[in-house]
């Protein structure tokens, strides 16, 4: 047989882009993905640098933060985004609230995604009694009212930000597991999985190298959707008094505290709502771009 002529050289000459190494570079090359990255960076920076960005304390109820009649102030030169019902600066609260919301939206949601994927993939690939047990359990969790479960869990543990994050993760993995299960079981039927088995590939290898990459688009979509759901679930829990304890700010509880005054003081709902939307959108843009970049069949398309 002929010896191959320097395969590495030939390869690099043909292919200008290495797939994994260039992910970051290709991500920033896309305008929309870049916008998403910028938004996330702004939110993270805002959360970290909050004490230096604003001169107010998030929980300080300021005398000049209310009108004579005691209603909140609309956005003005002193309070850029206005004040809330207790005369606190809204911008400050949103900046500090970003800390809570980022932890919930990323950590809690991330854990939920991880559990959901793990359960879904295991059940979908192995089927049999393992699959049945896992999926029946998932169905049970689905049928159980999530809020009630969260209340029970939160009542058992002392409410704190991290406990709330865990509670949210334990409630939110269910839908992901369902969707991933369905997709995995159809993937497992595909012929290339059979082909892998005939060359002797082990189950972990098939799962991680051949099934997981195909699930990425779904995982990314559910991950970005989960950000807004979890942020709002945290707000619900806060509202019921079992979430993040007031006066600590989170985007969710700012909306909840103020939603009844929506008509009189719309900015109180609008700004934190816009912040949640922007964060979810940013992750969605990044996720979309990632999905395309990681899919070789999409290469070369805009």
């Amino acid at each position, binding site marked *: *047989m*002929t*010896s*191959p*002529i320097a*395969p*590495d050289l*030939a*390869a690099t*000459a*043909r*292919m200008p882009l290495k797939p994994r190494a260039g992910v970051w570079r290709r991500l920033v090359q896309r305008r929309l993905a870049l916008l998403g990255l910028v938004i996330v960076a702004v939110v993270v920076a805002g959360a970290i640098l909050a004490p230096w960005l604003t001169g107010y304390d998030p929980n300080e109820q300021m005398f000049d933060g209310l009108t004579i009649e005691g209603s909140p102030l609309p956005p003005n030169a002193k309070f850029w985004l206005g004040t809330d019902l207790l005369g606190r600066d809204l911008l400050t609260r949103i900046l500090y609230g970003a800390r809570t919301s980022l932890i919930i939206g990323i950590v809690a949601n991330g854990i939920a995604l991880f559990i959901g994927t793990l359960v879904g993939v295991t059940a979908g690939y192995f089927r049999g009694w393992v699959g049945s047990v896992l999926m029946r359990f998932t169905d049970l969790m689905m049928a159980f009212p999530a809020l009630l479960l969260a209340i029970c869990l939160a009542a058992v543990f002392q409410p704190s930000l991290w406990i709330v994050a865990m509670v949210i993760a334990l409630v939110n993995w269910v839908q992901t597991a369902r969707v991933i299960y369905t997709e995995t079981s159809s993937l497992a039927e*595909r*012929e*290339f999985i*059979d*082909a*892998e*088995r*005939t*060359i*002797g*590939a*082990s189950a972990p*290898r098939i799962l991680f*190298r*051949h099934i997981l*990459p*195909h699930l990425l688009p779904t995982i990314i979509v559910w991950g970005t959707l989960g950000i807004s759901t979890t942020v709002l679930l945290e707000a619900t829990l806060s509202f019921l008094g079992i979430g993040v304890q007031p006066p600590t700010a989170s985007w969710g509880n700012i909306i909840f505290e103020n939603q009844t005054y929506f008509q009189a003081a719309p900015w109180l709902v609008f700004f934190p709502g816009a912040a949640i939307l922007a964060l979810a959108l940013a992750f969605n843009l990044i996720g979309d771009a990632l999905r395309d970049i990681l*899919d*070789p*069949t999409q*290469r*070369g*398309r805009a």
Partner: protein
Amino acid sequence: MAGRPEGGVPRQTSRKPAPAMTTNPILTITNLSVSVRGEEGSREVVSNLSLALARGETLCIAGESGSGKSMTALAIMQLLPQPAARISAGSIHLADTDLTTLDERRMRHIRGDRIAMIFQEPMTSLNPVLSIGRQLTESIEAHTSLSPTQARRRAIEALIAVRISEAESRLRQFPHELSGGMRQRVMIAMALALEPDVLIADEPTTALDVTVQGEVLELLRDLQKKHGTSVILITHDMGVVAEMADRVIIMRHGRMVEEGKTSDIFARPRADYTRELLAAVPRIGSGVGRQASKEIAEAAMPANVADVKDLHVRFDLHGGIFGQVTRRVHAVEGVSFSIAPNETLALVGESGCGKSTTAKALAGLVPYSGDIVVGGRNLSGLGRDERKAVRRDVQMIFQDPFASLDPRMRVGDLVAEPLLIHGIASKQERRERVAALFDRVGLSSDQMELYPHEFSGGQRQRVCIARALALRPKLIIADESVSALDVSVQARVLDLLKELQREFGVAYLFISHDMAVVENISDRVAVMYLGQIVEMGTRDQVFSNPRHPYTRRLIEAVPVPDPTRRRSRFARLDQEIPSATRRIGEAPLKLALSDVGDGHLVAAEG
């Protein structure tokens, strides 16, 4: 017939039998170009095609995949995939009407009523949740002013015309209750119920078994004679062309390569491409020149690479309230065979006969009972790691090379993967080995960095072959490995397989439904029917002296790519092939094979 109102006025005149072969063509295509908008701008898939279809004529448009033959059909129907594809130039005239200028509403009246179309896959073109009767009468009622009772009567007539028994009760059945051949006949009944002027059949028999294919072709021919319908038959199969066509158009890359009478095209092809195409078609009776390699093999290595004894594969079907096993699919019932080194054993049969399940059992993909001995070691007695080691010797090439390669991996990594899994060679050595394998199967080593979708079908199958070869197996199972390929590509892949066998001494278990291909590549042949082997012997024994009636029917049903040997009657099935699904406790009768001389085994007729 000229000057007929366009649109929804029900036709009365056309129910008279049409005059045969007038000089006025019913359908004229002039300078037709179809372009598809893609990533790199617009691309022509049909260029400057002109043709005329006479009344009562059968015109075959033949060509390989990507030749634009299906796009032409869709253009006539004005059903081009929107919004990407459009007619960029030319006209299509049905009698005096230019179809390209009609709006969608007027076109709808033409479709079904004056031009009907049948598609390749009868299951997907019938609506699974509506009864046959509902679907038939729906189209009749849409195009005529018949009352529901009359429409129903017309539907029954149409079913009788396509030789469907118990037509009345069939109307209540649903598509999944019918076999593939029946479904395609229902599609034909639907298409012909309105007595269209033109019938377009796009690969109508490609998805069907060969014995059923003959029946459907014969039916089309008879119906055409009776009604004087003009037929455009689109096919890749030169055998079908020879059996059916009056005239042939050969297409390639969207252009007409050659046009002529069928007998002329086959006897005196003018274009080079036509000659190549005809030369590549596998023919029964041409499989010679394999004996040489076989003799070497028998001298060199005496032991069998694989022995299969009394193999059973059954799938349980759960039913009832408690999900208990109520019925079983008896996919494989007591199959035994052995394969010697350097030998090709072909397993032939129609869909559902258990040939693929046998292959899967051998490859370790389905649980089985019975004995599979590979390289002298019985697989059922081994532990996991030992079994993995023995399995190295058995590799598999699947039917669809696109489906069997992970689309998210580079082909170089895919071919290297078996080596990686079995811990063979260092990274650098693996790379070199893969490059050498690429070289060997006719790919270039700098294609290693590409992904499966960047290859053509034939190249992808070469990747699969390289992958199967990577572990230097003793046995390669090729499950319909060339069926999805165009004939010219198919011929080259078959040649490659033969070369590799000479070079590496690998044995093949070659599974196929295509008798011509089997005759071309195999040393020995086993014919399967309903999970059992009904006949087994050397290629010559089986093909020159088929003893079992099923084998005979299988060989006779193959369309012969020679218009001078056109048959008026195809081998007909006496009845539908029974189902392999049985109730618990009703095991099928085991067929006894008897030797009729020189190891030619034939099952007693039962």
